[in-house]
């Protein structure tokens, strides 16, 4: 999403107040300071009134530390952790609408089964696949389905938590 893709990917987790305009403040800060966002996912957290954001950004360690500190300065941001080096669980969900004909349908279903993905919609000319996993798994499945023709694709971006104790 804009910016150049450089250096390593960093995963930041931000706990933010669930108030109007907070997403805008965060996105605006990335733009203004010329940091890039590769993906951003946001939703409720375990604490009422707080949302958890997972932001994947690129850059060297100093740049990402600068992003983290600038984010923490925002009044509505409670805490930001760079969990890249931590032991973490990451997941992404994708919905993939793939072209399917009578002759390709069963082959697609086989691939979907191998990836433990689900068919969530069946139409005369297409199948819609729901897949959850890390980015590598999603990319591999997409690579295989691309040969059949992908009509539409929607990915959520990465969400992440550290394993075990709290970050």
């Amino acid at each position, binding site marked *: 999403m804009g910016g150049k893709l450089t250096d390593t990917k960093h995963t930041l987790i931000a706990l933010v107040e669930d108030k109007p305009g907070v997403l805008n403040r965060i996105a605006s800060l990335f733009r203004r300071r010329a940091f890039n966002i590769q993906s951003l996912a946001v939703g409720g957290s375990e604490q009422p009134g707080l949302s958890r954001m997972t932001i994947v950004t690129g850059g060297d360690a100093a740049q990402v530390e600068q992003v983290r500190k600038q984010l*923490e300065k925002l009044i509505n941001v409670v805490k930001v952790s760079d969990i890249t080096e931590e032991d973490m669980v990451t997941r992404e969900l994708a919905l993939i609408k793939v072209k399917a004909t009578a002759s390709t349908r069963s082959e697609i279903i086989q691939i979907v089964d191998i990836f433990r993905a689900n068919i969530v919609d069946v139409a005369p000319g297409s199948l819609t696949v729901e897949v959850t996993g890390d980015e590598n798994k999603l990319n591999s499945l997409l690579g295989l389905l691309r040969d059949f023709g992908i009509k539409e694709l929607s990915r959520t971006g990465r969400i992440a938590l550290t394993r075990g104790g709290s970050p």
Partner: protein
Amino acid sequence: MKKTGAQILCESLIKEGVEVVFGIIGGAVLPIYDTFPQYPQLRHILVRHEQGAAHAADGYARVTHRAGVCLATSGPGATNLVTGIACAYMDSAPMVAITGQVARPFIGKDAFQETDITGITLPITKHNYIVTDVTELAKTVKEAFHIAQTGRPGPVLIDIPRDVQQEQTDFVYPDKLDLLSYKVVSRGHPVQIKKAAKLINEAEQPVIIAGRGIIISQAYDELKEFAEKAQLPVAHTLLGLSSFPGNHILDLGMLGMHGTGCANMAVQEADLIIAIGMRFDDRATANTREFAPHARIIHIDIDPAEIGKNVPTEVPVVGDVKSVLTAMNKEIERREHVDWLSQIEQWRYEHPSLEIRQSDELLPQYIVHQIYEATQGDALVVSGVGQNQMWAARYFVYTKPNSFISGGGLGPMGFELPAAMGVKVGRPEEVVWCVAGDGGFQMTIQELATLTQENIAVKIAIMNNGYLGMVRQWQELFYGRRYVDTKLWNPDFVKVAEAYDIPGIRVKRREEVIPAIQKAMEYPGAFLIDFLIEPEENIYPIVPPGESLARFFEPSRPEVLEGKI
């Protein structure tokens, strides 16, 4: 008893100790203005342009250490504040900007004088609010003042729709804040302080770079003790001027693009930089890759995001400057640094900072220095931006704490007059000199009317060279003397002042300078002096863009007139 939003706003301002509001009335703030007569303890100063309100609030804030308050209507009123808010943000000045907004049912409908001012000011405020429920208003004002005035100060904007100003609710001013995520670190970490002290105790060629953080924290005495105890010479950023006595033997003056040769040489040769309440601005560091190449760096700042932002730091100490220096003063040892200080005296001798070249023309350096002589430094100097700013920074000796006020980070021409107005209102007992350029002065010249209407006795010195001088200097030095669009036709400033009922005189010759300054000082009200200075006078030294601090350019020495050191 129920109160309207407008009443709640006024009472909340009073609870916060606000005495002065700079603003302009308009449609979306009518309910607020309509309640002002009920609160005579709030002085409203009617400016002539909202930019003036914001700069005045900024100037007021810088000299009172309390949030300056400005007030504007929706749409154009709000957008006119933007330059002043951005300036306060860059220079970490506490400000609460209040704007009217169209009534809630009109928001998002592109109504008359509707502007998304919270969206516009997002990147130039420490925080901002739109109050959509009158029951939230008192709490919002309390939060706004707290955020503006604590930690690294900055502007906070509160946008209040017109119907919220009219809506009624019970007024209860909250005792406590409910700011989950806003925490201010004040004390530095003891381990970091010990580490820093160790480096200071071991250093042979240390230099302090003193920034505006010292002034914000009012740590003048602590800095003086710190510098004197370990014999640490002090260079200043532009906004760090007046944080340490300019006539002190350890004072090196300003560093940077137009810094003194002595300060720049000392920083480049230092083995330890102790950066205090400053942010390594490019005008101070010049080329950061070649900045202080032999130095380890200690950086003391209240804002953790400043650490390592522009220059890598070896020992960061995050905390309030006053508290950190107090702790540090217990850890550092007495040192003498005889060789280092004698080397510095050598640089001071080779690059005298106050020398003024021989000329038959009227030189701005001489004028600024004469203002210093006339006031003996007991004045607050407010500068514009450009050459006038650099002359004001370099040729006045700042011995009084917090006596130099300038739009350093944003560099807004037109800052000088309204900011000086705010400074004088905040510190009426002080003599306030506004050092203006002829270009910048015309950007906010309308505030002369405010001076007269509100009886604000600012002394104005225009350094009139008939050019946008700093840009002309760059054209001369870096663009082959091609003076494109920098020559100015100017009005007769003395006549302009007269039209605003402000007396003024024009000064063309050197011998008229001192009597003119005396006359301005003796006059009880605002006074304007139009100094017709040498049109192509430059500010030196200059570090050309992209060069290191050590590679400053200064004119050759023989033509020195007053070799003051």
